[in-house]
């Protein structure tokens, strides 16, 4: 079976100005949204207390809110979680109260207030300082990842590719964060993990394309850099599409089957894989091209195993 049967080279790079414009607009929109809407940080980052309880029948949120209010928790955010029988209650960090005792206290209030049988599913308490540290560490982790990758790709390929792929990664991370901000999806630790996985995935894509570009620069004697890049992108296109499909398939499985706890994770990766696929085609390659990648940059490094079949393959 074959999804894409491409006879001719697709002139990807001729659309690069349009793509560039699109990327810039989306990135600016993300920055704008992150600045105004901010991210809807989860408990991991903000600190506070979260209680998830399970009811035997559909829970009455208004009643729960009223119970919380009469007991002095006016700031309680009460929401369904996953199903209409699961409810999460989130409380901000409060001063003077032993926060780690809050969870059990709320559980007691609900138990006596509703008179229903309540199943404690999860209580989480995060101190404010921990959240701050985590946000700092998370940011640092992303930065370290980008730098390590920059160094590795520069070492294995060429600085233009390295810069191109890192900008592509930055682009992917920013757009994913932007989408989380626009949609006001909760940003917790698992989402942070997903974004680091997006970095891994998107890079995977970019490397495959860059690898082919390098190979073709050595193999194809005619045509300028733009044409070589177009040929490489066309050759790798069906692999790019198929891998995206398999990854999206498993992510869909996670999204629909993984349960509420893993929802944010799956969402971030779904978005990230879309953006990552696009960026490996357009962002990384067109930046390498814009930086003036040429045959000469890649020729000196001769890899022997490719020398053997060079003549056969030259068109």
């Amino acid at each position: 079976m074959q999804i894409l049967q491409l006879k001719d080279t697709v002139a990807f790079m001729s659309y690069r100005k349009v793509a560039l414009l699109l990327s810039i607009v989306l990135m600016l929109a993300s920055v704008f949204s992150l600045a105004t809407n901010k991210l809807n940080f989860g408990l991991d980052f903000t600190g506070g207390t979260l209680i998830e309880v399970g009811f035997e029948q559909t829970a009455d949120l208004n009643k729960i809110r009223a119970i919380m209010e009469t007991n002095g928790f006016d700031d309680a955010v009460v929401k369904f979680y996953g199903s209409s029988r699961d409810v999460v209650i989130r409380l901000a960090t409060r001063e003077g109260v032993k926060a780690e005792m809050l969870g059990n206290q709320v559980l007691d209030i609900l138990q006596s207030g509703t008179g229903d049988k309540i199943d404690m599913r999860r209580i989480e308490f995060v101190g404010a300082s921990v959240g701050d540290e985590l946000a700092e560490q998370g940011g640092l982790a992303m930065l370290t990842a980008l730098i390590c990758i920059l160094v590795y790709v520069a070492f294995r390929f060429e600085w233009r590719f390295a810069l191109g792929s890192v900008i592509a990664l930055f682009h992917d991370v920013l757009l994913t964060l932007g989408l989380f901000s626009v949609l006001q999806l909760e940003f917790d630790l698992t989402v942070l993990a997903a974004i680091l996985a997006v970095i891994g995935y998107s890079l995977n894509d970019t490397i495959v394309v860059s690898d082919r570009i390098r190979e073709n620069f050595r193999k194809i004697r005619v045509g300028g850099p733009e044409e070589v890049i177009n040929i490489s992108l066309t050759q790798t296109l069906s692999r790019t599409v198929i891998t995206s499909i398999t990854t999206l398939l498993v992510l869909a499985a996670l999204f629909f089957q993984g349960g509420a706890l893993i929802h944010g994770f799956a969402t971030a990766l779904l978005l990230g894989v879309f953006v990552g696929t696009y960026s490996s085609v357009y962002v990384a390659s067109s930046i390498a091209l814009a930086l003036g990648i040429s045959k000469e940059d890649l020729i000196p490094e001769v890899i022997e195993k490719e020398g053997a079949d060079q003549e056969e393959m030259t068109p």
Partner: protein
Amino acid sequence: MLNKYPLWKSLMVLFIVAIGAIYASPNLYPEDPAVQLSGLRGVETTAATLDTVKSHLDENNISYANIAMEKGQVLARFKNTEEQLKARDLLDDIMGEEYSVALNLTPATPSWLASIGGTPMKLGLDLSGGVSFLMEVNMQEAIVKVQKSLVDDFRTGLRGEKIRYRSVKNTNDSINVQFRNAEDLEKAETFLSKQNRDLLFVSNEGNLTLSASMTEQKLKETREYALQQNITIIRNRVNELGVAEPLVQRQGKKHIVIELPGVQDTAKAKEILSATATIEFRLVDTEGDLGAALNGRVPGSSQLLKERNGQPVLLKKRVMLTGDHIVDAGSSFDEYSRPQVNITLDSAGGNKMSSNTKSNIGKPMATVFIEFKPTDRVDSEGNTIFEKVEEVISVATIQARLGKTFRITGAGSQAEAHNLALLLRAGALVAPIQIVEERTVGPTLGAENVQLGFQAIMLGFGLVFLFMLVYYRAFGIVANLALGANLVMIIGVMSMMPGGAALTLPGMAGIVLTVGMAVDANVLIFERIREEIREGKSIQQSIHQGYDAAFSTIIDANITTLIAALILFAVGTGPIKGFAITLSIGILTSMFTAVVGTRTVVNAVWGGKRLDKLSI
């Protein structure tokens, strides 16, 4: 010949996959309900304990599957949970004073598998249910305490050298000594800097002060010590909670992670974790009549306490020294290779000890461990009532006038000496700790997460399986074989990893993601083979070229993903670490199965034959 592997290479691949499968197999066996007994505070579990447990169970007609010693604990397995619960209650009643009795689910791994180290994967708290705490050590307090003891040291030291000073004070980050004249200042600086090589001294001739601050090294050591001490104490207390397989681990520079699987009553756990303990040295009342005391006639100046083994001891009420003077305690061996406990006191403690032991040489001295344990009762304000529990942990004869450092010999076995040292250190907690994060997962949610994770893996796996089969036909089957082998190997490696590597819900997501991404290597290879065929190469040439050309790409692509995963591992905690672990393992195993594994199968099926068409 092209595309033929020598036999040994194929066998090697098969062997590696088989090893993975063997170590993954313990996960297929169900778990037995069990009760585990481990000694509390220095009590050792021995074969005798085993027999006691057996006889208690037999007497009460509780049937068990088997009882054995495992890793220094007595483990009794039962056929059903009913018997298990009965046994727990019984054993806790009879032996609960000296042993921690905990419910456990023990894997029913066959003995041949267990003997080669086969164990099932550990489940993270989000899957098993339970509570995890993140505790923060108050480092500021630890440093202040050390400074305070230095102030005492300075005072005694200067007095001993007859150097006159006006005052010794500790400020935020240094200790300032004020003198009356420059001569004393100079003498003091020479003396103190010789005594305290880990301090930095700066003298100010103008206002006649000498200020000492801790070196970076000393500060680091102080923090490290505070953290280690807290970990030791928490381990000790966690053991009392009667939790099977608790985890106490440092995290970063000032945090401690505590994971208690299966615990639901977090209030109780928190109280025990934050209970306070102290140590007292007291003289044994050798004149008092022990027999009379046992009958209720305890002399007014004495108190009747019990030793570990239940032996009663009559102690003087007067306290010779309290534990907050203990700076350090450790175990080692004396000149006859007998275990001993070395104790270091601060200088004030040294002086007290010295004057208190001077007139008591030859008399026995007892070490009393005092703990404030929470009870089930509450006072009128709803606060838990703490019960003071005193226990004699050692009785030793004073051989000489004791000073700042002394040792206790005759503590029994090396393990006992080690335990005594731990307890002595527990007496003086250098830095208070605070709960900064707490996560409790109920048992229903845990079980649900396992189910959801499992379903997601199966669904994701199935979808990719189907897609590859339709898209690549015969080669799709090969890729699917590799995918299956990969899944088995991830589970095998996860099961092999000692400690730390628990399977979490994000970890399961990591497995799902790996399944999706692992086929990428095969897609790369297969697409390349198709390309080569289209260019008109022979089938065998195409297969060879396909694998060769895709190889370096696969390596590069995987290494960069591995970099991201490793960074995540370094930064993440708990569940996130679980994700990083499965992702990293998945990347490594998938490179093996997708490249070497598929090549072996492809070579065996298609290699070296004259082919006109390929089912790809």
